[in-house]
């Protein structure tokens, strides 16, 4: 570094605390709108891509955002359930492939997505190790979930009890980890997957216990033709094993079993229209196109971004004005220095360059700081958007 540029650098370095604060203020002012833009755009891309891959979602009437985000991102919702009979009805119609979704339960705080094997094909989920869940009590983990929970194939993961002190509610159920999926960079990486029948065990609708002819007589309250009434003291199986697998059963018709939603993959556009129109005519059901719902949601997000942009603009203007004030005060404090330089014969242009280089140094470093920060945000935006779900 030579000449006046060297002097500017030495002055900035001599006042490193003040220079650092100024650079930080300007850098953060530039970083805020840039980072917001990156995060919102990444969030929008993420949401849109997943929504485009999900043509239709059938669920109970209610908030369409809740239904869509529940089916796409497994977020908990207060919506009612829909019966499994709808899966059979759609499949029987032959116009579409239905994929049942139940995500009302968690394990160590993560959603358990109970579904059918078609879901894994839809999302391109392939097992990195082991196999996808095939029977009651099996579970496969998303890549990030496996990493963060520290679990591997062969481990057991207990579900979170729904009501710890209420004996009438189902207790925790042990899920056997049968596989771990490759990462696909979506919400699937964070989830635990199981068979849809496991959902009904977790609901307490299906259960498993020893055969009635092997039970102690004290646990049998009443026995009549075709019906055995058991005592409430009977302990049900808390996990499914190869030995007790056949003990699991339901006491109701499978058609009435509850689901959170059904992803519907229509055969063609005509089927899409027919299914959409038909189900939306039903009193307690709604069918949504996730792409349209997400577009509406993004319109809200983008309007918020515009607000943030406006706020950033005002903050930026205020910061620039304050920076100008700081530079003016600094220039005033350096009046004597300028006078000395003038007296020894320094050109006015050199004095201007001395100040100009320092301003450029501060602005340049601020921009580099903002660029590095924005790049870091862009690098970690996928995990940021994951936390926003």
């Amino acid at each position, binding site marked *: 570094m*030579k*000449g*006046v540029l*060297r*002097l500017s650098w*030495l*002055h900035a*370095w*001599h*006042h490193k605390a003040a220079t650092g604060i100024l650079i930080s203020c300007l850098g953060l002012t530039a970083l805020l709108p840039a980072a917001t833009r990156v995060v919102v755009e990444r969030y929008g891309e993420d949401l849109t891509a997943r929504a485009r891959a999900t043509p239709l979602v059938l669920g109970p009437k209610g908030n369409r955002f809740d239904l869509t985000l529940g089916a796409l991102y497994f977020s908990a919702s207060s919506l009612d359930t829909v019966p499994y009979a709808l899966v059979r009805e759609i499949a029987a119609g032959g116009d579409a492939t239905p994929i049942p979704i139940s995500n009302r339960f968690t394990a160590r705080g993560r959603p358990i997505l109970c579904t059918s094997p078609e879901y894994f094909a839809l999302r391109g989920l392939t097992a990195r190790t082991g196999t996808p869940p095939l029977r009651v009590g099996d579970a496969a983990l998303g890549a990030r979930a496996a990493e963060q929970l520290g679990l591997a194939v062969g481990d057991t993961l207990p579900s979170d009890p729904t009501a710890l002190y209420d004996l009438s509610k189902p207790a925790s159920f042990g899920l056997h980890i049968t596989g771990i999926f490759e990462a696909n960079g979506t919400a699937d990486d964070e989830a635990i997957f199981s068979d849809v029948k496991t959902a009904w065990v977790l609901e307490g609708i299906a259960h498993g216990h020893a055969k009635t002819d092997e039970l102690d007589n004290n646990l049998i309250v009443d026995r009549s033709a075709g019906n055995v009434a058991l005592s409430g003291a009977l302990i049900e199986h808390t996990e499914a094993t190869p030995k007790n697998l056949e003990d699991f059963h339901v006491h109701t018709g499978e058609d009435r079993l509850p689901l959170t939603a059904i992803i519907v993959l229509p055969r063609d556009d005509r089927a899409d229209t027919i299914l959409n129109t038909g189900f939306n005519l039903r009193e307690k059901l709604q069918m949504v196109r996730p792409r349209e719902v997400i577009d509406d949601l993004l319109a809200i997000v983008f309007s918020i971004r515009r607000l943030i942009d406006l706020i950033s603009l005002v903050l930026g203007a205020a910061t620039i004005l304050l920076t100008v004030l700081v530079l003016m005060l600094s220039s005033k404090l350096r009046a*004597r*220095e300028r006078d*000395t*330089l*003038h*007296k*020894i*014969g*320094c*050109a006015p242009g*050199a*004095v201007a360059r*001395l100040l100009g280089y320092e301003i450029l140094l501060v602005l340049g470093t601020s921009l580099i700081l903002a660029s590095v920060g924005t790049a870091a945000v862009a690098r970690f935006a996928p995990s940021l958007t994951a936390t926003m779900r």
Partner: protein
Amino acid sequence: MDRTGSGILTFALRDLVWRYAGADFELRVDELAARRGEAVACIGPSGCGKTTLVHLIAGILVSNNGTVQLDGTDLSTLNERERRARRIRTIGMVFQEFELLEYLSALDNILLPYHVADELQLDADVRGRARELASEMGISDLLARKPKKLSQGERQRVALCRALVTQPKLLICDEPTGNLDPKNAETIVELLLRQAREHAATVFMVTHDHGLLKRFDRVVDVRNLNGRDA
């Protein structure tokens, strides 16, 4: 080129009148000149115009009444850029308050004219000269220090090195000992005059310290410049 007697004139002021706009103050100089290598002390009470005189000789101020010749050139014929260029090449300036830049090391302060003037080339010779000057001034061990870490006397030695590093023909010193104790003042003036003699530079020094006057070839009182040059 103006010559008088046996010597070449470094500077010469004739029939000069200077007034600050809106002020009663007026400085009149009928004639004032200094030969090459001459050491001239300038005295006078506060407010009589010593600093104004220094600024006129250096071309920092320019009067339309009368002439100021520096190294044979009438400064009023030069524009601001030319005067500034001539100043940085020809004149070394030393101030009462040292006027060192706090953010530069002693060495960078010495080399300041080379950092800020495009017409001066900073090369190994100049760096060597700066170190040599510092050694002669007894501050060679202090070159990495910032002014804050130097004593008053050391600061003025750095300022003196800065004035001498361009090998000026004229050394203008505006009360350089004003902030120094008598012992330091003696030392600084001794160093200043010795260096000037070695480099055949003319010295024009404003001072209030009458104890130093005996060291100069000539003493001028600003009050006597009007019609009665000392």
